[in-house]
């Protein structure tokens, strides 16, 4: 428990991400997507994954583009102004990718159930919509409608707990034990992390445990949930990390162009940006480089 959990992305992914795993994905849209850890999974070509999250964006789409994903469970797949997640869309439309659709509240409620160690969570969303399986049961495991025992005839939806085999998240600060501090918006991560069997965290800055103990109410998640700490500045690039750097619209667009074209274009993008490099730093140097990364950091300083 009190082990030093600092290791390379290569080691962390090799140790904790198994083929066929249910993979919890941190971040949202263009914010704090764990790209360094995603690239490492692609580099090691760990396949048959079920990717789960609330909003799934560029990280998930690159895993799908690399042919490593069998199934997704989420509330949405898209990159907002940058368009949809094209590899994901193509996979669903041509039937090579299974999906299970929920609302964002339903997904975070599934993680909350996993966090709390209960088998399901009640929600009042989904009612009346096609997100709810037909009353005859529909696809098992998705959601069931029950009654409020204290007010019969009041329907309540139960969604099943979700405990990922391993989750990957990128955060601002962590200590060697795995105490993590998320600054700014935290999306679904606190619930997902606590629900997961294993957690790999990459961080912008490694801090000491003394610093953690100095402000214990600022610790977002304590070390008991975390297996590996990967120190990777700019580990969310080209998405943003609140307080550290803004997203890189050009690089996101470059990937989207390849993803929209599909097939060889995606292959070429991943070859040039992932497989060509032994580490994420190689990608950072190729796609951005220090001056550009500094400009993104300056852009963030301007708006925070």
């Amino acid at each position, binding site marked *: 428990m009190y082990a030093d959990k600092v290791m390379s992305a290569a080691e962390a992914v090799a140790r904790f991400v198994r083929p066929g795993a249910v993979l919890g994905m941190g*971040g*949202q*849209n*263009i*914010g*704090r997507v764990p790209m360094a850890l995603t690239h490492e999974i692609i580099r090691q070509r760990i396949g048959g994954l079920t990717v789960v999250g*609330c*909003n799934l964006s560029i990280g998930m789409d690159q895993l799908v583009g690399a042919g490593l994903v069998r199934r997704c469970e*989420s*509330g*949405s*797949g*898209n*990159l*907002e*102004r*940058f368009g*949809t*997640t094209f590899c*994901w*869309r193509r996979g*669903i*439309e041509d039937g090579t990718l299974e999906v299970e*659709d*929920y*609302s*964002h*509240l*339903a997904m*975070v*409620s599934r993680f*909350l159930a996993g966090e709390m160690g209960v088998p399901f969570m009640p*929600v*009042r*969303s*989904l*009612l*009346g*919509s*096609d*997100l709810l399986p037909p009353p005859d049961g529909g696809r098992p495991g998705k959601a069931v409608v029950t009654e409020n025992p204290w007010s019969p005839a*009041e*329907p*309540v939806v139960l969604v099943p707990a979700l405990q990922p085999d391993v989750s990957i998240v990128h955060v601002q600060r962590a200590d060697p034990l795995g105490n993590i501090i998320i600054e*700014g*918006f*935290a*999306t*679904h*991560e*606190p*619930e997902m992390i606590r629900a997961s069997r294993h957690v790999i965290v990459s961080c912008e800055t490694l801090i000491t445990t003394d610093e953690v103990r100095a402000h214990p109410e600022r610790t977002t998640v304590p070390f008991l949930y975390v297996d590996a700490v990967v120190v990777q500045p700019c580990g969310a690039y080209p*998405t*943003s990390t*609140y307080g550290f750097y*803004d*997203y890189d619209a050009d690089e996101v667009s470059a990937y989207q162009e390849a993803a929209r074209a599909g097939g060889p274009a995606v292959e070429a993008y991943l070859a040039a940006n992932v497989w060509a490099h032994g580490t994420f730093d190689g990608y950072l140097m190729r796609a951005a480089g220090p001056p550009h990364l500094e400009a993104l950091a300056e852009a*963030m300083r301007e*708006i*925070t």
Partner: protein
Amino acid sequence: MPSGDTPAVGAGASRQELMVIEAARRLRDGEVVFVGTGLPLLATTLAQRTHAPHIVMVIESGVIAPQVRPTPISVSDPKAMYRAVRLGTLREVLGGLLQRGLIDVGFLGGAQIDRYANINSTQIARPHGIRRLPGSGGANDMASHCRRLLIITHHERRRFPERCDYITSPGFLDGPGGRQRAGLNPDFSVAVVTDLAVMENDPETCALRVTALMPGVRVEEVLAETGFRPEVAPDLRAVAPPASDDLRVLRDELDPGRLYLKAEEAASSRRA
């Protein structure tokens, strides 16, 4: 500047600009608004900087009461988080505020909307298989729990089918009593603001009907661009031209790069 192929309306505003301004007008000062990405973010910020300074914006990613800096392109864009009083979690916002019943208005961007204001953002049926869309996100949660739903989208026939192929987010479902039967809060109303018109649910039939027209738009034009045949309100009115201040704030402060408006104009100009 409005693009050439969309006729300028009152005070030189394009229809797209007036659409944003009209949507902003429908937000009241002090309301708690759950804001989706895109035009809703733009329109709510406009309201906050004009007639509704005390509006409380809530954004799904965990953002409460920000003072949005131009021009965010995502709910996870730090510009949308500027000087928030709380940056928290999706659970806090979607569970603790929205499902808990503390949000006054849900404000959504473009999607497929049917006669009974049901929304599809999941998949469109096509001759050979489906076209997959992004999915619910927080939209199903907004439509399930908000008492008032505001939708901003540009007006195209394919966006307004008789019945959605897939109901991602519940409007009135199959009409009167539909929400009660499903176990949803029946205290619910919908307004759809487009570049051609405003449509609102008829309190009796629950169906969307045309209640206002953009300046220079004829009702036939609206019906031609609407997949279902909406009723037209007897007291059909014209959307008021923008106050000059609205237009200045929108153009100079909020979208100087025309990140949103240019795209919208391009979209609706396809019609021209």
